[in-house]
């Protein structure tokens, strides 16, 4: 069998239903094989979008997302998406064509050392040197991408090798990877100590991150929280891991988190970090982060434990397996719940004193927060929401109360503008029956607006709700607050005419610039068949609050 066909067989054996990509010279043999493949190839309009679509696909469905690109510029266009998938631990496989083996190292046409370029941003990579390796490498790539702490794996295939004939035999069984054995169980002794620490804590907080979603462990998190009214906060990546409208929910923590969540971390005596990594957007000033707390840290990646914040009780394991054990051990201790009464009184006090708030207008001007609230109502709080990066992302995190996992797809670690639309495309391909809405920023959307064509060509019913504030709003906010209002290169100006742009791509375009019409405009956007762009003109200079200024402590929240 031709190696390229064996590649497709291997992908098929891994259960692949969709891949995203753009062909080119070095990947011609691969595309010739895709011609006959049993799965679907979604042709995007820029390789970065193929990568983000693969991420959206993976985040929404839990399955491995796959993207194809040709050598050189095709592969380098993937780099941002690979870095994004690395930062947010998204199970993805990137397959790139490479120049012929006799050209490698000669600066051949469209040659780029993509395995070298991506080395620091992949979980692993394979450069094929013998066509017979291809099925095995694909098998390994999928295994590595989805097991342990998920992440991106790159397979680079020289053009001449993918055209060669090989003996293909379907591979069964676990791949042989002597240096790769993630520990998933969690040490029971450590788990018992953690249970005791919880039983002896008077001011505990459960701090959950994207790892809980990756592990499909929301149910298990809820069980632990329910075992004793433990207060719960989630990171930006963890939103949806715990149902937002809940008694025990403190709101998101971190730079634009709630005061309640951040103050709770600040005063906690025990913090249980679950699939979270103490990013600087969470900790703020490290030396003043949660100064009274001891830390239990549960993570499948041992290197995350004590990386930023030293753990008192480290537990390496899959949170899906560790949490039920911790809950069981904790329940067995029959701790006295009333010890938490005082803590809850304190938390309730913050909740009452510092709810999320904004001042709505008295005229028809649309406040951006209002737009998200309206969006929450219009979608019944149950859509898959993707976003770009900026203020709109933070407002979505604050005001769209995610109740379920895999409903909030955004770029947290890398903060990649332009993530939203291609991720929505990927999510829609994965979950055709779900409502998928991209909450876009005007600065971000224009970076990827060529993807309107992808949605139109593939009949993908995605909705884009554009929060049009005419600015790189988040940067404008920083210039206002921390750079003496010396505004530089943050205005977007009046162009483009988004409705016309959408229509040019075959989308429906709707403009909304008055508050009274917002609910109706959203309703009709959601009800209109096919892709729709809703251009919502919001207050141009609203700031996103509350906020921990960069490098400050939770106590110093402003706004």
């Amino acid at each position, binding site marked *: 069998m031709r190696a390229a066909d064996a590649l497709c067989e291997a992908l098929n054996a891994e259960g692949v239903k969709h891949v995203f990509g753009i062909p080119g010279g070095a990947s011609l043999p691969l595309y010739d094989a895709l011609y006959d493949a049993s799965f679907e190839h979604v042709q995007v309009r820029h390789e970065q979008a193929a990568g983000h679509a693969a991420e959206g696909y993976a985040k929404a469905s839990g399955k491995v997302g796959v993207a194809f690109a040709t050598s050189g510029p095709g592969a380098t266009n993937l780099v941002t998406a690979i870095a994004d998938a690395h930062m947010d631990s998204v199970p993805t496989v990137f397959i790139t064509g490479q120049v012929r083996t006799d050209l490698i190292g000669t600066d051949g046409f469209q040659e780029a050392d993509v395995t070298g370029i991506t080395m620091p941003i992949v979980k692993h990579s394979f450069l094929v040197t013998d066509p017979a390796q291809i099925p095995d490498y694909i098998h390994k790539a999928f295994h590595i991408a989805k097991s342990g702490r998920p992440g991106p794996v790159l397979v680079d295939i020289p053009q001449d090798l993918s055209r060669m004939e090989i003996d293909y035999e379907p591979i069964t069984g676990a791949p042989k990877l002597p240096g790769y054995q993630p520990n998933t169980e969690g040490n029971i*002794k450590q788990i018992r100590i953690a249970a005791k620490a919880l039983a002896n804590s008077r001011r505990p907080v459960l701090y959950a991150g994207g790892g809980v979603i990756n592990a499909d462990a929301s149910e298990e998190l809820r069980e632990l929280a329910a075992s004793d009214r433990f207060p719960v906060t989630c990171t930006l990546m963890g939103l949806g891991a715990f149902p937002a409208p809940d008694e025990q929910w403190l709101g998101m923590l971190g730079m634009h988190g709630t005061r309640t969540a951040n103050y709770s971390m600040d005063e906690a005596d025990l913090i249980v970090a679950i699939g979270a990594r103490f990013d600087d957007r969470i900790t703020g000033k490290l030396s003043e982060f949660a100064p009274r707390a001891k830390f239990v840290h549960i993570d499948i990646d041992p290197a995350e434990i004590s990386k930023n914040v030293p753990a008192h*009780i480290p537990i390496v394991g899959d949170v899906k397996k560790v949490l039920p054990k911790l809950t069981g051990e904790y329940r067995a201790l029959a701790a006295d719940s009333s010890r938490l009464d005082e803590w809850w009184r304190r938390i309730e006090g913050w909740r009452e004193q510092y709810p999320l708030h904004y001042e709505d207008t008295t005229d028809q001007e649309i406040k951006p927060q209002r737009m998200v609230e309206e969006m929450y109502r219009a979608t019944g709080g149950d859509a898959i929401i993707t976003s770009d990066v900026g203020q709109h992302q933070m407002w979505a995190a604050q005001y769209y109360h995610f109740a379920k996992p895999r409903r909030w797809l955004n770029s947290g670690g890398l903060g990649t503008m332009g993530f939203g639309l291609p991720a929505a495309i990927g999510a829609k391909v994965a979950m055709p029956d779900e409502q998928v809405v991209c909450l876009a920023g005007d600065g971000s959307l224009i970076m990827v607006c060529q993807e309107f064509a992808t949605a139109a060509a593939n009949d993908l019913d995605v909705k884009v709700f554009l929060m049009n504030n005419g600015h790189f709003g988040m940067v404008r906010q920083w210039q206002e607050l921390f750079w003496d209002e010396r505004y530089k290169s943050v205005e977007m100006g009046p162009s483009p005419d988004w409705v016309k742009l959408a229509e040019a791509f075959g989308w429906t375009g709707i403009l909304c610039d008055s508050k009274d019409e917002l609910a109706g405009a959203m309703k009709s956007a959601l009800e209109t068949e096919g892709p729709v762009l809703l251009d919502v003109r919001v207050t141009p200079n609203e700031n996103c609050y509350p906020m921990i200024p960069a490098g400050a402590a939770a106590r110093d929240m402003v706004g």
Partner: protein
Amino acid sequence: MAESGTQDLLDLDELRAENGLTGRRHLLSLLVENRPGVLARIAGLFSRRGFNIDTLAVGPTEDPDISRVTLTVDGAVHPIDQVTKQLHKLVNVIKIRDMEPDKTVAREMALFRINAAADNRAEIIEFTQIFRAHIVDVSRRSITVEVTGTTEKIDSFERMVRPHGLIEMARTGEVAIVRARPES
């Protein structure tokens, strides 16, 4: 270790977390898959995470599919635990051993080309004998000496000959192996 469900208390104040700094030099012995790019991954990891490699030696092992990478890292500057955990994440790294000094045989080899005019030639030859080193090359102006031993021994040889005019030095970095337990 207490059993499940026992009521004995645990005082949160008694919990300790370690900052990971050991204050000493660590010799890490890695078994890695013998394939292209593995060293680049290791070196890249160190530079990306801001860890410094003090010495590095790479070579084959008894198994042709496996290479050994021996490197030394300053545990006073870098949390060694974090270094080894990051290394473990590399799929091609099979095994890592943080060698315990008193259970390890470690050796380094070095070549020194030393100024050896007539008036100090004798002294250098004497040093060479004292250090049980070998003269491997001689010219009218210089002597080249091969020294094998612990890093400390090589350091002190260097200190001895430097005043005489050290023209060039090449060191391999340490390699190490676990000391066999004495037969009982």
